[in-house]
């Protein structure tokens, strides 16, 4: 039913097309700006509480969140065995899937065993990753997306463009038009007098989907977290469509990436505090559901959990890249990324767009394929993604590491293809000098200054700026400013004329003025 990303052009080509779409650029700039501001306000609120006497601040919370996920990953085999045992004890049926095809086959088999020709779905990145809807459709089973944005995307036969707000590229007039044109083909039609008020559009979605919720026999979900100790799955959402899918059907199948494990229920705590603030910019999302297998007399009485690899063990084997598996899919890194804001999600050619997509896709799929190989170059290495990430994934570090892998994979090519791809990406991303200048200002200080002040290191060895005197004190105190590279991209760009001049000078130009303290 919905389109796929198969055959997407490499990032620079797709990005250039997206840049021509002014509606998309406008919507994205608005959306990322709004969410960014909301998140910043809540981070400041936590910091203010810290200043007023609360023992921990935002950085302590990030450290705890990162530590919980890292602890689970470091002992992943043991945690997965424990999760399987707890789930089984709680009445769930646990399946294992090496890849997308195996996972899809399991879901289809469960649906068929109940004679279901349709399933209702909670928004889930992982089921998009494995192309579950298309696989079920091929088996004659309709998969109804029930999240409002996913519904819009599905009805428009479109692709999601943002982890959190997948229809961010559509405005209200377009949504109205899609509802009027398509709802009648798949269920209850949109009312004829539908306006483009978001409230009216949401009400139309409520009516349209309610009949599907009430009759659905099989629900399909992902999970934000899976607690090994108690066999508890967690779904974090806003609209209540998740609760509907998790509660009303007789049968529930949850597809869970193996990296979703959290060791203990108590350790969910920092993640439940970090995720909504980083994601939607709320203190708490409207609904969080947790369930442990089958609850007698309450909700689905047949519960399946599919534990999925699909490349995650590739990522795990990469010593630098494995930290990407800590990702809790909050999308904060998308909202701060200057490249994402201008190119939009589709340019990444994957369900995982933005900075996290630029590292996760190559880590899951491996390098060597043209489209995937172009992704690590879709970045300025400005560091904003790392700073925003609630589980402290050092995305720039992984990007640089993956670029090396891509280049290594192309040794012997002439002309060097990977570099050519990189340069095209850079030429596109940094054509607007003033925009990039702002980003570099936002990151505050040049690496040359910070390099001298550096006195501590992140886990993983990355130098940090430590705490700075003057107006930057509050900022670095809260955020553990990563030291940018000694020569900023713009400096390098100016010096080498966009990489066309030979990279002869080893010392950075001293004439640029960006990178002063703000």
């Amino acid at each position: 039913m919905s389109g796929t990303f198969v055959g997407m052009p490499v990032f620079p080509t797709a990005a250039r097309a997206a840049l021509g779409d002014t509606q998309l650029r406008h919507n994205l700039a608005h959306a990322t700006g709004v969410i960014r501001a909301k998140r910043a306000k809540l981070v400041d609120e936590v910091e203010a509480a810290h200043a007023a006497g609360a023992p921990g601040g935002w950085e302590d919370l990030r450290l705890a969140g990162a530590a919980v996920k890292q602890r689970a990953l470091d002992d992943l085999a043991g945690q997965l065995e424990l999760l399987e045992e707890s789930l089984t004890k709680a009445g769930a049926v646990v399946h294992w899937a090496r890849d997308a095809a195996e996972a899809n086959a399991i879901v289809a088999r469960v649906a068929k065993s109940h004679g279901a020709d349709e399933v209702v779905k909670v928004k889930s990145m992982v089921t998009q990753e494995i192309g579950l809807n298309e696989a079920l459709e091929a088996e004659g089973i309709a998969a109804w997306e029930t999240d409002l944005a996913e519904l819009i995307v599905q009805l428009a036969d479109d692709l999601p463009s943002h982890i959190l707000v997948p229809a961010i590229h559509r405005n209200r007039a377009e949504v109205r038009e899609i509802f009027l044109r398509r709802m009648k083909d798949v269920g209850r039609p949109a009312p004829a007098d539908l306006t483009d008020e978001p409230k009216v559009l949401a009400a139309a979605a409520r009516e349209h989907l309610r009949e599907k919720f009430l009759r659905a026999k099989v629900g399909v979900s992902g999970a934000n977290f899976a607690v090994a100790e108690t066999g508890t799955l967690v779904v974090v959402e806003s609209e209540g469509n998740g609760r509907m899918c998790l509660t009303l059907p007789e049968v529930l199948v949850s597809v869970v990436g193996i990296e979703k494990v959290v060791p203990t229920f108590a350790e969910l705590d920092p993640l439940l505090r970090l995720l909504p603030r980083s994601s939607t910019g709320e203190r708490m999302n409207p609904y969080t559901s947790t369930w442990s297998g089958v609850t007698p007399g309450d909700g689905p009485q047949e519960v399946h959990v599919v534990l999925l690899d699909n490349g995650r063990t590739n990522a795990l084997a990469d010593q630098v890249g494995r930290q990407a598996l800590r990702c809790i899919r909050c999308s904060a890194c998308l909202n701060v990324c200057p490249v994402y804001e201008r190119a939009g999600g589709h340019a990444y050619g994957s369900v995982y767009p933005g900075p996290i997509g630029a590292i996760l896709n190559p880590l899951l799929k491996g390098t060597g394929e043209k489209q995937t190989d172009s992704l690590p170059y879709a970045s300025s290495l400005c560091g904003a993604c790392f700073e925003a990430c609630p589980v402290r994934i050092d995305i720039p570090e992984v990007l640089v590491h993956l670029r090396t892998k891509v280049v290594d994979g192309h040794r012997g090519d002439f002309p060097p293809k990977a570099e050519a791809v990189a340069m095209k990406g850079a030429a596109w991303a940094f054509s607007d000098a003033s925009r990039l200048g702002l980003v570099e200002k936002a990151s505050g200080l040049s690496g040359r200054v910070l390099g001298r002040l550096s006195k501590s290191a992140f886990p993983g060895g990355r130098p940090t700026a430590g705490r700075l005197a003057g107006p930057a004190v509050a900022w670095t105190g809260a955020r553990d400013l990563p030291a940018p590279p000694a020569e900023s991209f713009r400096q390098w760009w100016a010096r080498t004329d966009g990489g066309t001049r030979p990279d002869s000078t080893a010392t950075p130009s001293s004439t640029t003025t960006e990178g002063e303290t703000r």
Partner: protein
Amino acid sequence: MSAAREAVLGRVRSALADVTPTPEPVVPPITSALSAAPEGHVLDVFVERVEDYKAVVEQVDAEGLAAHLATLFEPGQRVVVPAGLPAELAAAVPVAVTEDDGPLTAAELDAVDAVVTLAAVGVAETGTIVLDHSAGQGRRALSLVPDRHVCVVRADQVVADVPEAVARLAGAVSAGAPLTWISGPSATSDIELDRVEGVHGPRTLHVLLVAADTVGPVS
């Protein structure tokens, strides 16, 4: 044991050959100033934060609770009362719909006007109420399908922040109970980030904060 299971676990083990696990659980930091605040202040913030989500919050005396509850409904409205809800509360709604004669279907639930439940925990910092679906709170569908949810929270159930809530709920989760964390009515910001309250879950959330600890489930 399936071949897929052995393969996945095998790959995980070999990927992590260089890693030593950390056996001790992470102890997360307290980040709310409320964790050390007096109870009265915690309750004030709870009320303020629940209201932030455009939910209705009222503070009521235990003695006046049933009478107040009765004023919240139009005559003839059908209200689901879960098993274990105190009898005087069940008696206060215009037409009580129960599951005494077996579970209601989803369609039957869709045809009622409201539901009244108790809660397990209230979280002040985030304006959240948590149901563990024990007596008086009903199975999950009861507080989901009806369009209006009236939730009775006792003052002694309100904690400062998520760490305290997780600590209180750990026992229920270990015993296999599902949880529903509710922060305001259902909402979406999917269309141009314009927040709309009320999508699939109850479009109205009405919280009654009861000053004393006398309202409990009937088992």
